[in-house]
């Protein structure tokens, strides 16, 4: 349970997952249902209960077509596709932190790469 992440996702999405009344109209409307690991109503519930890390690890967030059928149909203005997009944004923002540790850098260095580029990248991603 990660309340901070829930709040971050809700803030990025600009919607309130607590307004969900579990009607399932989003999942009823979703055209990519069979492809998705988590279905729209589950996304809302997982964001609300703070299971964001599971969502971040899931490939499912990239199978959402962003067709916005769920946004159109949601009677409570929870709009699952916005939450899914917010989790994707969160994942993108985490990319640098997850993939590059300072101690791994020397082995990857290309001798032709300008020193300044490496320094600026480190500064940008704060290690």
């Amino acid at each position, binding site marked *: 349970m990660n309340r901070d992440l829930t709040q971050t996702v809700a803030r990025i999405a600009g919607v309130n997952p607590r307004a969900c009344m*579990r*009607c*399932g109209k989003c999942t*009823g*409307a979703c055209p990519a249902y069979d492809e998705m690991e988590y279905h729209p109503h589950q996304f809302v519930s997982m964001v609300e209960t703070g299971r964001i890390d599971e969502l971040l690890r899931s490939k499912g967030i990239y199978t959402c077509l962003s067709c916005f059928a769920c946004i*159109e*149909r949601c*009677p*409570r*203005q929870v709009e699952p596709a916005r939450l899914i997009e917010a989790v994707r944004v969160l994942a993108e923002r985490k990319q640098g932190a997850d993939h590059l540790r300072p101690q791994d850098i020397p082995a990857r260095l290309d001798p032709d790469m300008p020193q300044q580029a490496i320094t600026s990248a480190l500064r940008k991603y704060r290690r």
Partner: protein
Amino acid sequence: MQRIGVFVCWCGTNIAATVDVQAVSDALAKEPGVVLSANYQYMCSQTGQDLIETAIREHALTGVVICSCSPRMHEQTFRKTVARAGLNPYLLEIANIREQCSWIHKDRAQATEKAIILGRAAIAKVQLNTPLQAGQSPVTKRALVIGGGIAGIQTALDIAEAGFAVDIVEKQPTIGGKMTQLDKTFPTLDCAACILTPKMVDCAQNEKIRIFSYSEVEAVSGFVGSFRVTIRKKARYVREDVCTGCGLCTEKCPQKKVPNAFNLGLDTRRAIYIPFAQAVPKVAVIDADYCSMLKNGKCGVCAKVCAAGAIDYTQKDELVECEYGAIVAATGYNPIDLSGYDEFAYSRSPDVVSSLEFERLMNAAGPTGGTLLRPSDKTHPKTIVFVQCVGSRCSAEGKGKTYCSKICCMYTAKHAMLCREKYPDTDVYVFYIDVRTPGKNFDEFYRRAVEEYGVHYIKGMVGKVSPEGGKLKVQASDLLDGRQLHIDADMVVLAAAIEPDKSARPLATMLTASMDTNDFFTEAHPKLRPVESPTAGVFLSGCCQGPKDIPETVAQASAAASKVIGLLSKDSIVCNPCVAQPDELMCNGCSSCEKVCPYGAITYLDKEFRGPNRTTLLRRVAQVNPAVCQGCGACTVACPSGAMDLKGFSNRQIMAEVDAICR
């Protein structure tokens, strides 16, 4: 010089545990004008009241301050006490040291200090109190019921039963309302018409009841006890007193292509029609939008065939004015317009119907004679999908209603059950968010639909309906099984949210009755006065106050009737003397007060005043009708020249209280 008595109540330990009552009465004894200050365990008890009465007589008190509970609780009690001792009851002030002091504070010293300040303010106010006399106004012994559905019918019958005259105004050509369109009623499945039509006939035969059918309320003036109402009797082009209801004209009329509103447009009727066989009054009416005689003066078939000679193409709307002591709003509901719900293909396929349309398709008197047939190709549907909560329980920003429509769970269970009973080879699916069945024998009814009739109840919602090759492709979620369902349905039935009738809002304006954001009438108190409007003399019956099923509507209708009977059984009513009073010399005629008055109590009058040098000035000044004014004080705040004052709560009195608190 004022002679004021102060009485501090302990209220057992309610006040005394947090407030030092002795200290309060000692401190208040020193206030100017106070000649007596006492405290007692229960001021409202017989002994406590005797104490006050004796004190008023012995000390010749000119004003009384009681420090006790909220005036809402015991102001009436103590006013009577004071009056018994021969003092004007409006020379009493109550300082609320329980709800506004002892109950909300913990610190004894601080609470005691606050109680003293509240007492001081009341003393400062009572110094300026003047004796007020409550006026009387007469009661017209006739009630008006607006709306002739089951709510209005029940209210009218109950009022008439008590011996009072009552008029029903119904905008449709017949009374009966929505219930006439229903097939069966839950949870007992008795036929709606069988239980309703006898009541309709009772209304028509009761000599205390007058029915204004095909009529609307045009204007309302007056106040509780004497409302003056203008009723517009719309031209039906058929003389009501002559027509025998034989129906020959409705068979001979050549204009056959008129959508039948009674069957929600699922079939057609003629331009002259009787809504249905058991209509009350059973009188034909001409639909002026379709009648060729009225439109271009050619035809006249109905006049030729009418043996009674009832047809009158020259008939005009007629205005009737009547006086009433009480008015009951029973304007009812309508299902919402479903054209905004494209995902369910309501506008694209005739086989997607609303529940009320489905009701007509199942009804023996309906367009299919009670055989369930698809509107598109008149075949038996084999798979029927019911969708709940269409337009109900939506967020405020969305297109639907925020409230639960309350009746849909039960009527959908009824529809599903009836389908399975009549046509056991049909597959019936009900998609629900929650099944809400709080009512006597309601949950048992729903369980019967599931257990005995094998209706498939699925927790989830339909996301999409697309008409394809004569079928309706339904895509929905099944949340409990965690799967998406694809059903090839023959019919889809939408449980549309219900909303107040569109006539309710203009009516509320005419009645100066308050409404909520959804256009439901607001009650005077949500728990303790559920059938009264905050506007005196206006009562609420049925769905105009909130979504209701038939048993609840009938119960509320009878409750409203009993309130009306209570009012009409009085010859006159006592008015609240704490009403607004304008100072005509200060009034500048700006109408600010008239605009803010929620009760319509203020009117303007051109009045002659003496001007300088023996001249006469004509000035426009505000007048308050004390019988209508509820003493809310909105006008006193709005008046830019300070001309408006509230008796018993004058600006001077309020300022004196503020000064006493700030001292």
